[in-house]
């Protein structure tokens, strides 16, 4: 009994699968996403909260906003510094970040995050661009 041929074929397939990412990316550069700020966002200097907080927790913030608005009908968000904002994706977030494809999508696509915000919201409520 000698199945060495079959075993080697199986091993070759296994190694091809394990090293798949190396083959898939061969000769390709993987540019790091570079989200662009609009002029308005740049001028505002800071978002609703600090940049570090927004980078890590923006989805939580939006989730809380949605629940607070829809369930409690409260529309005013008070930041840690005491500033007040309307809790609205379309009117507050997208007011500055009106460039979804160059801002939101850059990182989301890279990390394969597909938020369901846009199932309901249109990404350009003011009809700009």
């Amino acid at each position, binding site marked *: 009994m000698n199945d060495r041929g079959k075993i080697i074929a199986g091993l070759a397939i296994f190694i091809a699968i394990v090293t798949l990412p190396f083959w898939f990316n061969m000769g390709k550069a993987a540019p790091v996403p570079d989200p662009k700020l609009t002029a308005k966002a740049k001028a505002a200097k800071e978002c609703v909260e600090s940049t570090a907080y927004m980078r890590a927790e923006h*989805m939580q913030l939006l989730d809380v906003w949605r629940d607070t608005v829809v369930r409690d009908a409260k529309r005013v968000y008070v930041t840690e510094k005491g500033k007040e904002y309307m809790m609205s994706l379309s009117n507050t977030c997208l007011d500055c970040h009106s460039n979804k494809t160059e801002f939101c999508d850059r990182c989301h696509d*890279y990390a*394969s995050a597909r938020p369901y915000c846009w199932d309901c919201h249109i990404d350009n409520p003011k009809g700009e661009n």
Partner: protein
Amino acid sequence: MNNKYMISFIAVFVLFFLAYLGTEALGLDVLFGVLIPYAALAVFIVGFVYKVMGWARSAVPFRIPTTCGQQENQLGFRQNTLDCPSTAGAVVLRMFLEIVTFRSLFRNTRMNFREGHKVSYNLEIFLWLFALIFHYAFLTVIVRHLRFFLEPVPKALQLLETVDSFMQIGLPVLYLSGAALLVAAVFLLLRRIFIGNVRYISLASDFFPLFLIGGIAFTGILMRYVTKVDIVSIKQLTMGLVTLHPTVPEGIGGLFYGHLFFVSILLAYFPFSKLMHLGGIFLSPTRNLPTDTRATRHVNPWNYPVETHTYEEYEDEFREKMVEAGLPVEIMPEEQPAEEAEADSPSEEKE
């Protein structure tokens, strides 16, 4: 307390803090982010090939298929082709179902005494169920992680993510496979700790992979749902690894390096551990040999060439003496050997 699982638990704990403190306090990001993962992958591939080739070289002295059904026969009994296959096709089907649904494990029973002394065998389904959950959850988690290694992320992978998170629990949406992996790993661990007769046969090498995989799932869940790591930097690191241009971005955090170190340890440990059942399942002789032991001859590769002396050779050697002694022979010598010799000799010369 049992030192077998305590040692494994402490080992996993120490490994985590090695990576955590190594990157947070000593700044060994390149070591834990690039060098160790590459080394681990190399050890995994070379070790895996070495192990399997060792098995391929091993002789199979005789067929040992296990039969769990009626064998092929000429008596009119219907053959159980799946559990007692006699053809290659049926063997492939048996192997496929074994690998995909763990049929052997499903057959697991537990003996009980009923009414004092009556023996009964009950279906013991939970090991099979949680083993199945564990393996499929782990597979899904591994495939899902390809999003960190492929750019652009393929559509099929995005579909898998959507299916895996279809309950839309929390934000970021909960991946069911991650939770299932942790739950199943904990079940398999508690089974080994709390069931006495299983604990008795459990070794540190049984506990260590469970703690390690549990640790991988736990740190992964922590990063995604609790502490929030910078996923863009992490993909930058992982893409650097697979495009062979390693880069180590700032500020990824010790928790990620702990997670990555766990995975590296798992990869490097894999070929030398029970986890090699990944390759071994394909080579189980009780599963992958057809039950045709009476129909085809299985030659043992160990067999050395045996010197034989058949009766024909014996008679050739002693024919004349046998005839002289009056013993019966199968081929009578010719009446006139001299004539035959004359007739034969020219032909021999021609040759």
